[in-house]
Protein backbone atom coordinates (compact mmCIF):
# COMPACT_ATOMS: atom_id res chain seq x y z
CA UNK A 1 0.00 0.00 0.00
CA UNK A 2 1.38 3.40 -0.91
CA UNK A 3 0.48 6.61 0.76
CA UNK A 4 1.26 8.96 -2.06
CA UNK A 5 -1.76 11.09 -2.73
CA UNK A 6 -3.24 10.50 -6.19
CA UNK A 7 -3.09 13.62 -8.33
CA UNK A 8 -6.29 15.39 -9.15
CA UNK A 9 -6.74 15.45 -12.91
CA UNK A 10 -6.73 18.92 -14.35
CA UNK A 11 -10.05 18.23 -16.02
CA UNK A 12 -11.64 17.23 -12.71
CA UNK A 13 -15.13 18.71 -12.82
CA UNK A 14 -14.79 19.99 -9.29
CA UNK A 15 -11.28 21.32 -9.54
CA UNK A 16 -10.68 24.68 -8.04
CA UNK A 17 -7.53 26.61 -8.82
CA UNK A 18 -6.92 27.40 -5.16
CA UNK A 19 -6.88 23.78 -4.11
CA UNK A 20 -3.67 22.79 -2.46
CA UNK A 21 -2.03 19.60 -3.57
CA UNK A 22 -0.92 17.48 -0.71
CA UNK A 23 1.52 14.70 -0.17
CA UNK A 24 0.72 12.37 2.67
CA UNK A 25 3.91 11.14 4.05
CA UNK A 26 4.19 8.84 6.99
CA UNK A 27 3.85 5.12 7.07
CA UNK A 28 4.05 3.09 10.26
CA UNK A 29 7.48 2.47 11.60
CA UNK A 30 6.36 -0.47 13.65
CA UNK A 31 2.98 -1.85 12.74
CA UNK A 32 0.40 -3.07 15.22
CA UNK A 33 1.41 -6.46 16.60
CA UNK A 34 -0.12 -8.96 14.25
CA UNK A 35 -2.72 -11.02 16.05
CA UNK A 36 -3.21 -14.63 15.08
CA UNK A 37 -5.39 -15.02 12.03
CA UNK A 38 -8.92 -16.22 12.65
CA UNK A 39 -7.97 -19.54 11.16
CA UNK A 40 -5.17 -19.94 13.66
CA UNK A 41 -7.59 -19.28 16.48
CA UNK A 42 -9.81 -22.05 15.28
CA UNK A 43 -12.67 -21.84 12.89
CA UNK A 44 -12.07 -18.40 11.47
CA UNK A 45 -14.34 -16.37 9.26
CA UNK A 46 -17.10 -18.50 7.99
CA UNK A 47 -20.01 -17.53 5.89
CA UNK A 48 -23.22 -18.63 7.50
CA UNK A 49 -24.96 -21.56 5.97
CA UNK A 50 -28.15 -19.83 5.00
CA UNK A 51 -30.02 -22.98 4.18
CA UNK A 52 -30.65 -24.51 7.56
CA UNK A 53 -29.18 -22.48 10.40
CA UNK A 54 -29.47 -24.26 13.70
CA UNK A 55 -32.08 -22.35 15.63
CA UNK A 56 -32.40 -24.18 18.92
CA UNK A 57 -29.72 -22.36 20.87
CA UNK A 58 -30.79 -19.03 19.44
CA UNK A 59 -34.43 -19.61 20.32
CA UNK A 60 -33.34 -20.59 23.80
CA UNK A 61 -31.38 -17.36 24.10
CA UNK A 62 -34.37 -15.38 22.87
CA UNK A 63 -36.78 -17.01 25.30
CA UNK A 64 -34.62 -15.81 28.19
CA UNK A 65 -35.26 -12.19 27.23
CA UNK A 66 -37.73 -10.39 29.48
CA UNK A 67 -40.72 -9.67 27.22
CA UNK A 68 -41.22 -6.31 28.89
CA UNK A 69 -37.65 -5.02 28.90
CA UNK A 70 -38.32 -2.60 26.04
CA UNK A 71 -40.78 -0.80 28.31
CA UNK A 72 -37.97 -0.09 30.78
CA UNK A 73 -35.63 1.19 28.09
CA UNK A 74 -36.03 4.93 28.41
CA UNK A 75 -33.26 6.87 26.71
CA UNK A 76 -32.54 10.51 26.20
CA UNK A 77 -32.17 11.71 22.67
CA UNK A 78 -28.51 12.12 21.84
CA UNK A 79 -26.79 13.22 18.69
Amino acid at each position, binding site marked *: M*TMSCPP*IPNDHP*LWKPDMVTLQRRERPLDP*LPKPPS*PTEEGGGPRRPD*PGSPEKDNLLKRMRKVDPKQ*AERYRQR*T*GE
Partner: protein
Amino acid sequence: MLNRIFGLETEYGLLINSDDPDHSPSWLAHRVIDHLFRTQHQGVLDQHYRGYDEPPGNGGFLLNAGRLYVDMGHVEFASPECNTLFDLVASDRAGDRLIQQALEELGLGEKVSFIKNNIDHGTDATFGSHENYLVTRRFPFNLKGLNYLIPFLVTRQIFTGSGRIGAAENSESWIPLHQGDSKIPGSHDASGRLTIPYQISQRADHIVNDFFEWVQHNRSIVNTRDEPLADPNQYRRIHLLLGDSNMAETATALKMGTTGLVLQLIEEGHMPTGLDLDDPVLALKEISRDPDRKWIVRLASGARASAFDIQEQFLKAAQKHCRGQDEETDWVLEEWEAVLTDLHGPYDKLIGRVDWASKLWLLESFREEEHLTWEDPWLRSLDLEYHNVHPQRGLFYGLEEEGRAPRLTTETAVELAIQNPPRNTRAFGRGELVRHLIGKDWSKDPPLDSSKDRRFPHYVINWSIFQLRGYPPFPMPDPFKTYVQQVRSHLTAQQNQGALNP
Protein backbone atom coordinates in the same frame (compact mmCIF):
# COMPACT_ATOMS: atom_id res chain seq x y z
CA MET B 1 -6.87 1.82 3.38
CA LEU B 2 -5.29 4.21 0.93
CA ASN B 3 -5.19 7.82 2.14
CA ARG B 4 -7.91 7.43 4.70
CA ILE B 5 -8.23 7.84 8.42
CA PHE B 6 -11.41 6.38 9.86
CA GLY B 7 -13.15 6.93 13.16
CA LEU B 8 -16.41 5.80 14.73
CA GLU B 9 -18.32 7.34 17.60
CA THR B 10 -20.91 5.21 19.35
CA GLU B 11 -23.52 6.36 21.85
CA TYR B 12 -24.78 3.41 23.86
CA GLY B 13 -28.22 2.97 25.31
CA LEU B 14 -28.41 1.77 28.90
CA LEU B 15 -31.06 -0.74 29.93
CA ILE B 16 -31.72 -1.22 33.62
CA ASN B 17 -33.16 -4.64 34.29
CA SER B 18 -35.07 -3.59 37.37
CA ASP B 19 -37.45 -0.89 38.47
CA ASP B 20 -34.97 0.72 40.84
CA PRO B 21 -35.67 4.45 40.66
CA ASP B 22 -32.28 5.29 42.18
CA HIS B 23 -30.44 4.07 39.13
CA SER B 24 -31.02 6.34 36.16
CA PRO B 25 -29.12 5.68 32.92
CA SER B 26 -27.19 8.95 33.38
CA TRP B 27 -26.16 8.06 36.92
CA LEU B 28 -24.96 4.64 35.80
CA ALA B 29 -23.15 6.14 32.83
CA HIS B 30 -21.10 8.34 35.18
CA ARG B 31 -20.47 5.38 37.47
CA VAL B 32 -19.01 3.39 34.58
CA ILE B 33 -16.79 6.31 33.56
CA ASP B 34 -15.55 6.81 37.11
CA HIS B 35 -14.81 3.13 37.48
CA LEU B 36 -12.84 2.85 34.26
CA PHE B 37 -10.78 5.98 34.80
CA ARG B 38 -10.42 6.29 38.57
CA THR B 39 -10.33 2.64 39.61
CA GLN B 40 -9.12 0.72 36.56
CA HIS B 41 -6.86 3.49 35.20
CA GLN B 42 -7.85 2.79 31.62
CA GLY B 43 -7.16 6.42 30.73
CA VAL B 44 -6.93 9.95 32.05
CA LEU B 45 -9.95 12.10 32.83
CA ASP B 46 -10.23 15.55 31.32
CA GLN B 47 -9.15 18.27 33.73
CA HIS B 48 -10.58 21.11 31.67
CA TYR B 49 -13.94 22.14 30.30
CA ARG B 50 -14.31 20.75 26.78
CA GLY B 51 -17.74 22.28 26.42
CA TYR B 52 -20.68 23.47 28.45
CA ASP B 53 -21.89 19.87 28.87
CA GLU B 54 -18.42 18.34 29.19
CA PRO B 55 -16.99 19.50 32.51
CA PRO B 56 -13.77 18.12 33.97
CA GLY B 57 -14.17 14.47 34.94
CA ASN B 58 -16.96 13.86 32.44
CA GLY B 59 -14.69 11.61 30.39
CA GLY B 60 -11.24 11.40 28.94
CA PHE B 61 -8.76 9.77 26.62
CA LEU B 62 -8.06 6.08 26.96
CA LEU B 63 -4.90 4.00 26.72
CA ASN B 64 -6.01 3.04 23.21
CA ALA B 65 -6.11 6.79 22.39
CA GLY B 66 -9.86 6.77 21.89
CA ARG B 67 -12.25 8.75 24.10
CA LEU B 68 -14.86 7.58 26.56
CA TYR B 69 -17.27 10.09 28.03
CA VAL B 70 -20.86 10.88 28.87
CA ASP B 71 -22.70 12.74 26.15
CA MET B 72 -26.29 13.78 26.71
CA GLY B 73 -26.74 11.00 29.25
CA HIS B 74 -25.19 8.31 27.06
CA VAL B 75 -21.85 6.60 27.46
CA GLU B 76 -20.03 7.37 24.22
CA PHE B 77 -16.91 5.74 22.85
CA ALA B 78 -14.97 7.48 20.11
CA SER B 79 -12.47 5.20 18.46
CA PRO B 80 -8.88 6.27 17.96
CA GLU B 81 -7.83 7.31 14.47
CA CYS B 82 -7.56 4.16 12.37
CA ASN B 83 -5.88 3.77 9.00
CA THR B 84 -7.25 0.28 8.36
CA LEU B 85 -10.70 -1.22 8.54
CA PHE B 86 -9.27 -4.08 10.58
CA ASP B 87 -8.05 -1.65 13.26
CA LEU B 88 -11.35 0.20 13.16
CA VAL B 89 -13.50 -2.90 13.64
CA ALA B 90 -11.21 -4.11 16.41
CA SER B 91 -11.37 -0.70 18.11
CA ASP B 92 -15.13 -0.58 17.77
CA ARG B 93 -15.46 -3.93 19.48
CA ALA B 94 -12.88 -2.94 22.08
CA GLY B 95 -15.19 -0.10 23.11
CA ASP B 96 -18.04 -2.58 23.59
CA ARG B 97 -15.85 -4.88 25.63
CA LEU B 98 -14.43 -2.14 27.80
CA ILE B 99 -17.80 -0.88 29.03
CA GLN B 100 -19.19 -4.40 29.44
CA GLN B 101 -16.15 -5.29 31.55
CA ALA B 102 -16.86 -2.25 33.70
CA LEU B 103 -20.40 -3.47 34.38
CA GLU B 104 -19.09 -6.89 35.38
CA GLU B 105 -16.43 -5.40 37.65
CA LEU B 106 -19.05 -3.20 39.30
CA GLY B 107 -21.26 -6.22 39.92
CA LEU B 108 -23.89 -4.80 37.58
CA GLY B 109 -23.60 -7.35 34.79
CA GLU B 110 -27.00 -8.86 35.43
CA LYS B 111 -28.74 -5.68 36.41
CA VAL B 112 -27.68 -3.37 33.62
CA SER B 113 -27.10 -3.85 29.88
CA PHE B 114 -25.38 -1.67 27.33
CA ILE B 115 -27.43 -1.64 24.14
CA LYS B 116 -25.58 -0.64 20.98
CA ASN B 117 -28.58 0.60 19.05
CA ASN B 118 -29.94 3.99 17.98
CA ILE B 119 -33.57 4.14 19.05
CA ASP B 120 -35.97 3.90 21.94
CA HIS B 121 -39.21 2.33 20.66
CA GLY B 122 -41.23 3.91 23.44
CA THR B 123 -40.21 7.55 23.25
CA ASP B 124 -38.81 7.84 19.71
CA ALA B 125 -35.55 9.09 21.21
CA THR B 126 -32.56 8.56 18.97
CA PHE B 127 -28.84 8.56 19.57
CA GLY B 128 -26.08 8.11 17.16
CA SER B 129 -23.38 6.23 15.51
CA HIS B 130 -21.18 8.85 13.88
CA GLU B 131 -18.67 8.09 11.16
CA ASN B 132 -15.55 10.13 10.49
CA TYR B 133 -13.49 10.11 7.31
CA LEU B 134 -10.45 12.28 6.88
CA VAL B 135 -10.21 13.79 3.41
CA THR B 136 -7.91 16.33 1.90
CA ARG B 137 -8.86 19.99 2.09
CA ARG B 138 -9.29 19.96 -1.67
CA PHE B 139 -12.25 17.60 -1.32
CA PRO B 140 -15.13 19.43 -3.04
CA PHE B 141 -17.01 20.25 0.12
CA ASN B 142 -19.72 22.16 -1.64
CA LEU B 143 -23.22 21.41 -2.78
CA LYS B 144 -22.07 20.08 -6.12
CA GLY B 145 -19.42 17.79 -4.68
CA LEU B 146 -21.47 16.50 -1.79
CA ASN B 147 -24.48 15.87 -4.01
CA TYR B 148 -22.54 12.99 -5.56
CA LEU B 149 -22.35 11.40 -2.14
CA ILE B 150 -26.06 11.62 -1.38
CA PRO B 151 -27.43 8.80 -3.60
CA PHE B 152 -24.76 6.47 -2.29
CA LEU B 153 -25.51 7.28 1.34
CA VAL B 154 -29.27 7.03 0.90
CA THR B 155 -29.06 3.60 -0.70
CA ARG B 156 -26.21 2.00 1.27
CA GLN B 157 -28.68 1.20 4.07
CA ILE B 158 -29.64 -1.96 2.17
CA PHE B 159 -26.48 -3.50 3.60
CA THR B 160 -25.60 -1.14 6.48
CA GLY B 161 -29.02 -0.84 8.17
CA SER B 162 -29.49 -2.50 11.53
CA GLY B 163 -33.25 -2.88 11.24
CA ARG B 164 -35.97 -2.08 13.73
CA ILE B 165 -39.52 -2.88 14.58
CA GLY B 166 -41.90 0.01 14.02
CA ALA B 167 -41.27 3.60 13.06
CA ALA B 168 -40.68 7.00 14.64
CA GLU B 169 -42.55 10.17 13.94
CA ASN B 170 -40.42 13.14 12.97
CA SER B 171 -41.27 15.08 16.08
CA GLU B 172 -37.91 16.81 16.24
CA SER B 173 -37.75 18.45 12.89
CA TRP B 174 -38.05 22.20 12.97
CA ILE B 175 -39.83 22.07 9.68
CA PRO B 176 -42.24 19.13 9.68
CA LEU B 177 -41.23 17.60 6.39
CA HIS B 178 -43.72 15.32 4.69
CA GLN B 179 -46.09 15.49 7.63
CA GLY B 180 -49.18 13.57 6.65
CA ASP B 181 -47.58 12.81 3.34
CA SER B 182 -49.06 9.60 2.07
CA LYS B 183 -45.97 8.99 -0.08
CA ILE B 184 -44.02 7.68 2.90
CA PRO B 185 -44.78 3.99 3.42
CA GLY B 186 -46.62 3.17 6.62
CA SER B 187 -50.08 3.49 8.08
CA HIS B 188 -51.53 4.87 11.30
CA ASP B 189 -53.43 2.90 13.91
CA ALA B 190 -56.63 3.99 15.65
CA SER B 191 -54.66 6.15 18.10
CA GLY B 192 -52.91 7.90 15.24
CA ARG B 193 -49.58 6.20 15.83
CA LEU B 194 -47.54 5.25 12.81
CA THR B 195 -47.32 1.49 12.36
CA ILE B 196 -44.61 -0.28 10.40
CA PRO B 197 -43.93 -3.94 11.20
CA TYR B 198 -40.24 -3.79 10.38
CA GLN B 199 -37.88 -1.49 8.51
CA ILE B 200 -34.23 -1.91 7.59
CA SER B 201 -32.78 1.28 9.12
CA GLN B 202 -32.90 2.68 12.66
CA ARG B 203 -31.87 6.23 11.77
CA ALA B 204 -33.79 6.80 8.54
CA ASP B 205 -36.84 8.11 10.40
CA HIS B 206 -34.68 10.67 12.21
CA ILE B 207 -32.98 12.23 9.20
CA VAL B 208 -34.93 15.25 8.03
CA ASN B 209 -32.44 17.21 5.94
CA ASP B 210 -29.96 16.56 3.20
CA PHE B 211 -27.35 19.05 4.48
CA PHE B 212 -27.09 20.68 7.89
CA GLU B 213 -24.38 21.48 10.38
CA TRP B 214 -25.99 20.51 13.69
CA VAL B 215 -26.05 17.05 15.15
CA GLN B 216 -28.79 17.19 17.77
CA HIS B 217 -31.63 18.65 15.72
CA ASN B 218 -32.59 18.59 12.07
CA ARG B 219 -30.19 15.72 11.51
CA SER B 220 -29.00 15.53 7.95
CA ILE B 221 -27.70 12.99 5.47
CA VAL B 222 -24.41 14.90 5.34
CA ASN B 223 -23.31 16.91 8.34
CA THR B 224 -21.64 20.08 7.12
CA ARG B 225 -19.81 21.08 10.29
CA ASP B 226 -16.26 22.07 9.41
CA GLU B 227 -14.26 20.66 12.28
CA PRO B 228 -11.31 18.72 10.90
CA LEU B 229 -9.62 18.00 14.26
CA ALA B 230 -6.43 18.30 12.23
CA ASP B 231 -4.59 20.94 10.24
CA PRO B 232 -7.46 22.86 8.64
CA ASN B 233 -5.21 23.93 5.79
CA GLN B 234 -4.74 20.34 4.73
CA TYR B 235 -7.70 18.33 5.88
CA ARG B 236 -11.41 18.07 6.25
CA ARG B 237 -13.33 15.56 8.28
CA ILE B 238 -16.43 14.17 6.65
CA HIS B 239 -18.75 13.59 9.58
CA LEU B 240 -21.80 11.40 8.95
CA LEU B 241 -24.57 10.71 11.40
CA LEU B 242 -27.16 8.95 9.30
CA GLY B 243 -25.76 5.45 9.83
CA ASP B 244 -26.89 2.79 12.27
CA SER B 245 -24.68 1.19 14.88
CA ASN B 246 -23.67 -2.18 13.52
CA MET B 247 -23.12 -5.41 15.39
CA ALA B 248 -21.88 -7.46 12.43
CA GLU B 249 -18.20 -6.89 11.76
CA THR B 250 -18.80 -7.25 8.03
CA ALA B 251 -21.44 -4.53 8.14
CA THR B 252 -19.18 -2.14 10.05
CA ALA B 253 -16.27 -2.71 7.68
CA LEU B 254 -18.46 -2.46 4.58
CA LYS B 255 -20.16 0.71 5.80
CA MET B 256 -16.85 2.46 6.37
CA GLY B 257 -14.98 0.83 3.49
CA THR B 258 -17.53 1.52 0.76
CA THR B 259 -18.05 5.08 1.97
CA GLY B 260 -14.29 5.62 2.02
CA LEU B 261 -14.04 4.42 -1.58
CA VAL B 262 -16.91 6.64 -2.73
CA LEU B 263 -15.18 9.62 -1.11
CA GLN B 264 -12.09 8.67 -3.08
CA LEU B 265 -14.11 8.54 -6.31
CA ILE B 266 -15.32 12.06 -5.61
CA GLU B 267 -11.83 13.26 -4.70
CA GLU B 268 -10.45 11.88 -7.95
CA GLY B 269 -13.34 12.90 -10.19
CA HIS B 270 -14.51 9.38 -11.03
CA MET B 271 -17.93 9.39 -9.42
CA PRO B 272 -20.89 8.09 -11.37
CA THR B 273 -23.23 10.81 -12.52
CA GLY B 274 -26.92 11.07 -13.28
CA LEU B 275 -27.92 9.50 -9.98
CA ASP B 276 -29.22 12.60 -8.17
CA LEU B 277 -32.33 11.79 -6.20
CA ASP B 278 -35.53 13.75 -6.53
CA ASP B 279 -36.03 13.86 -2.76
CA PRO B 280 -33.19 12.23 -0.80
CA VAL B 281 -34.88 12.47 2.60
CA LEU B 282 -38.03 10.86 1.30
CA ALA B 283 -36.01 8.21 -0.53
CA LEU B 284 -34.18 7.36 2.69
CA LYS B 285 -37.48 6.55 4.37
CA GLU B 286 -39.01 4.86 1.33
CA ILE B 287 -36.14 2.43 1.10
CA SER B 288 -36.06 1.76 4.81
CA ARG B 289 -39.77 1.05 5.03
CA ASP B 290 -40.36 -0.81 1.77
CA PRO B 291 -42.00 -4.08 2.85
CA ASP B 292 -41.28 -5.70 -0.51
CA ARG B 293 -37.63 -4.67 -0.47
CA LYS B 294 -37.72 -3.56 -4.09
CA TRP B 295 -36.20 -0.29 -2.95
CA ILE B 296 -37.29 1.84 -5.89
CA VAL B 297 -36.64 5.59 -5.72
CA ARG B 298 -37.28 8.54 -7.98
CA LEU B 299 -34.32 10.31 -9.54
CA ALA B 300 -34.12 14.03 -10.16
CA SER B 301 -34.40 13.24 -13.87
CA GLY B 302 -37.84 11.77 -13.23
CA ALA B 303 -36.66 8.23 -13.93
CA ARG B 304 -36.98 5.50 -11.36
CA ALA B 305 -34.11 3.40 -10.14
CA SER B 306 -33.62 0.78 -7.46
CA ALA B 307 -31.15 1.01 -4.64
CA PHE B 308 -29.43 -1.96 -6.28
CA ASP B 309 -28.98 0.00 -9.53
CA ILE B 310 -27.48 2.96 -7.69
CA GLN B 311 -25.17 0.87 -5.56
CA GLU B 312 -24.03 -1.11 -8.58
CA GLN B 313 -23.09 2.11 -10.37
CA PHE B 314 -20.89 3.13 -7.46
CA LEU B 315 -19.47 -0.37 -7.18
CA LYS B 316 -18.55 -0.45 -10.88
CA ALA B 317 -16.84 2.93 -10.65
CA ALA B 318 -14.88 1.81 -7.60
CA GLN B 319 -13.92 -1.47 -9.26
CA LYS B 320 -12.65 0.42 -12.27
CA HIS B 321 -10.68 3.07 -10.45
CA CYS B 322 -9.71 1.65 -7.06
CA ARG B 323 -9.16 -2.08 -7.54
CA GLY B 324 -5.67 -3.24 -6.73
CA GLN B 325 -4.61 -0.18 -4.78
CA ASP B 326 -4.34 -2.17 -1.56
CA GLU B 327 -5.53 -5.38 0.05
CA GLU B 328 -8.34 -3.81 2.03
CA THR B 329 -9.76 -2.04 -0.99
CA ASP B 330 -9.96 -5.36 -2.81
CA TRP B 331 -11.65 -6.95 0.18
CA VAL B 332 -14.24 -4.16 0.25
CA LEU B 333 -14.89 -4.47 -3.48
CA GLU B 334 -15.37 -8.24 -3.27
CA GLU B 335 -17.65 -8.11 -0.24
CA TRP B 336 -19.62 -5.18 -1.64
CA GLU B 337 -20.31 -7.13 -4.82
CA ALA B 338 -21.13 -10.32 -2.90
CA VAL B 339 -23.57 -8.56 -0.61
CA LEU B 340 -25.33 -6.78 -3.49
CA THR B 341 -25.61 -10.08 -5.34
CA ASP B 342 -26.98 -11.87 -2.28
CA LEU B 343 -29.48 -9.09 -1.63
CA HIS B 344 -31.23 -10.08 -4.83
CA GLY B 345 -32.05 -13.44 -3.24
CA PRO B 346 -33.72 -14.47 0.01
CA TYR B 347 -32.64 -12.19 2.84
CA ASP B 348 -31.47 -15.08 5.01
CA LYS B 349 -28.42 -15.35 2.77
CA LEU B 350 -27.19 -12.22 4.54
CA ILE B 351 -27.41 -13.59 8.08
CA GLY B 352 -24.34 -12.62 10.08
CA ARG B 353 -23.13 -10.06 7.54
CA VAL B 354 -26.03 -7.60 7.36
CA ASP B 355 -27.68 -6.61 10.61
CA TRP B 356 -31.21 -5.90 9.43
CA ALA B 357 -31.34 -9.32 7.76
CA SER B 358 -29.85 -11.11 10.77
CA LYS B 359 -32.31 -9.47 13.13
CA LEU B 360 -35.27 -10.04 10.85
CA TRP B 361 -34.44 -13.72 10.58
CA LEU B 362 -34.22 -14.04 14.37
CA LEU B 363 -37.47 -12.17 14.93
CA GLU B 364 -39.31 -14.09 12.23
CA SER B 365 -38.08 -17.37 13.65
CA PHE B 366 -39.20 -16.43 17.15
CA ARG B 367 -42.50 -15.00 15.98
CA GLU B 368 -43.30 -18.20 14.15
CA GLU B 369 -42.27 -20.35 17.09
CA GLU B 370 -44.25 -18.36 19.66
CA HIS B 371 -47.14 -17.34 17.38
CA LEU B 372 -46.64 -13.63 18.04
CA THR B 373 -47.86 -10.65 16.04
CA TRP B 374 -45.47 -7.85 15.09
CA GLU B 375 -47.15 -5.66 17.71
CA ASP B 376 -46.18 -7.98 20.55
CA PRO B 377 -43.89 -6.11 23.02
CA TRP B 378 -41.70 -9.18 23.34
CA LEU B 379 -40.45 -8.57 19.80
CA ARG B 380 -39.43 -5.00 20.67
CA SER B 381 -37.51 -6.43 23.63
CA LEU B 382 -35.78 -8.88 21.30
CA ASP B 383 -35.04 -6.03 18.91
CA LEU B 384 -33.10 -4.38 21.75
CA GLU B 385 -31.45 -7.61 22.83
CA TYR B 386 -29.96 -8.06 19.38
CA HIS B 387 -27.74 -5.08 20.28
CA ASN B 388 -26.83 -6.13 23.83
CA VAL B 389 -23.02 -6.04 23.98
CA HIS B 390 -22.99 -8.81 26.62
CA PRO B 391 -21.41 -11.69 24.67
CA GLN B 392 -23.43 -14.36 26.48
CA ARG B 393 -26.74 -12.53 26.18
CA GLY B 394 -26.77 -10.39 23.05
CA LEU B 395 -28.67 -12.03 20.20
CA PHE B 396 -26.12 -11.05 17.59
CA TYR B 397 -23.45 -12.75 19.65
CA GLY B 398 -25.68 -15.81 19.66
CA LEU B 399 -25.36 -15.88 15.87
CA GLU B 400 -21.63 -15.49 16.20
CA GLU B 401 -21.43 -18.27 18.75
CA GLU B 402 -23.29 -20.55 16.38
CA GLY B 403 -20.76 -19.76 13.67
CA ARG B 404 -23.32 -17.81 11.64
CA ALA B 405 -21.49 -14.48 11.61
CA PRO B 406 -18.09 -14.19 9.94
CA ARG B 407 -15.38 -12.48 11.98
CA LEU B 408 -12.90 -10.04 10.51
CA THR B 409 -11.06 -9.63 13.77
CA THR B 410 -10.07 -12.09 16.43
CA GLU B 411 -10.61 -12.02 20.16
CA THR B 412 -6.89 -11.44 20.57
CA ALA B 413 -7.04 -8.37 18.32
CA VAL B 414 -10.02 -6.98 20.22
CA GLU B 415 -8.29 -7.54 23.56
CA LEU B 416 -5.19 -5.78 22.24
CA ALA B 417 -7.26 -2.84 21.02
CA ILE B 418 -8.68 -2.19 24.49
CA GLN B 419 -5.36 -0.85 25.75
CA ASN B 420 -3.32 -0.30 22.59
CA PRO B 421 -3.76 2.35 19.92
CA PRO B 422 -3.16 1.73 16.23
CA ARG B 423 0.56 2.22 15.59
CA ASN B 424 0.29 3.93 12.26
CA THR B 425 -1.68 7.06 13.09
CA ARG B 426 -1.61 10.01 15.48
CA ALA B 427 -3.28 7.73 18.00
CA PHE B 428 0.07 6.09 18.70
CA GLY B 429 1.60 9.30 20.03
CA ARG B 430 -1.50 10.14 22.08
CA GLY B 431 -1.50 6.63 23.55
CA GLU B 432 2.09 7.17 24.72
CA LEU B 433 1.00 10.39 26.39
CA VAL B 434 -1.93 8.77 28.18
CA ARG B 435 0.25 5.89 29.38
CA HIS B 436 2.75 8.40 30.75
CA LEU B 437 0.12 10.48 32.51
CA ILE B 438 -1.53 7.50 34.19
CA GLY B 439 1.64 6.74 36.11
CA LYS B 440 2.60 10.33 36.80
CA ASP B 441 3.48 11.68 40.22
CA TRP B 442 1.91 15.14 40.15
CA SER B 443 3.84 16.31 43.18
CA LYS B 444 6.84 16.70 40.87
CA ASP B 445 4.99 18.93 38.44
CA PRO B 446 6.74 22.28 37.85
CA PRO B 447 5.70 24.92 40.35
CA LEU B 448 3.23 27.42 39.05
CA ASP B 449 4.33 30.86 38.12
CA SER B 450 2.12 33.05 40.27
CA SER B 451 2.01 35.67 37.56
CA LYS B 452 0.28 33.21 35.23
CA ASP B 453 -3.09 31.53 35.38
CA ARG B 454 -3.06 29.29 38.45
CA ARG B 455 -6.03 27.38 37.18
CA PHE B 456 -4.15 25.71 34.37
CA PRO B 457 -4.64 21.97 34.87
CA HIS B 458 -1.83 19.44 34.90
CA TYR B 459 -2.69 18.53 31.32
CA VAL B 460 -5.07 19.39 28.53
CA ILE B 461 -5.55 16.81 25.80
CA ASN B 462 -7.50 17.25 22.61
CA TRP B 463 -7.52 15.24 19.40
CA SER B 464 -4.96 17.39 17.64
CA ILE B 465 -2.99 19.00 20.46
CA PHE B 466 -2.00 18.56 24.06
CA GLN B 467 -0.30 20.68 26.66
CA LEU B 468 1.30 19.84 29.96
CA ARG B 469 1.45 22.47 32.66
CA GLY B 470 4.56 24.58 32.34
CA TYR B 471 5.32 23.43 28.81
CA PRO B 472 4.44 24.76 25.40
CA PRO B 473 1.55 23.20 23.53
CA PHE B 474 2.36 20.08 21.52
CA PRO B 475 0.42 20.20 18.25
CA MET B 476 -0.40 16.97 16.40
CA PRO B 477 -2.03 18.36 13.27
CA ASP B 478 -1.44 15.42 10.94
CA PRO B 479 -3.44 12.29 11.78
CA PHE B 480 -1.24 10.27 9.40
CA LYS B 481 1.82 10.92 11.56
CA THR B 482 2.40 8.94 14.73
CA TYR B 483 4.37 11.67 16.54
CA VAL B 484 5.52 8.90 18.83
CA GLN B 485 9.21 9.79 18.95
CA GLN B 486 8.48 13.48 19.42
CA VAL B 487 5.99 12.74 22.19
CA ARG B 488 8.53 10.53 23.96
CA SER B 489 11.17 13.24 23.70
CA HIS B 490 8.72 15.83 25.01
CA LEU B 491 7.81 13.65 27.96
CA THR B 492 11.44 12.79 28.69
CA ALA B 493 12.37 16.48 28.74
CA GLN B 494 9.54 17.09 31.14
CA GLN B 495 10.63 14.23 33.38
CA ASN B 496 14.19 15.51 33.42
CA GLN B 497 13.08 18.99 34.34
CA GLY B 498 10.90 17.50 37.08
CA ALA B 499 13.96 15.77 38.46
CA LEU B 500 15.72 19.12 38.61
CA ASN B 501 12.79 20.61 40.51
CA PRO B 502 12.18 18.09 43.31
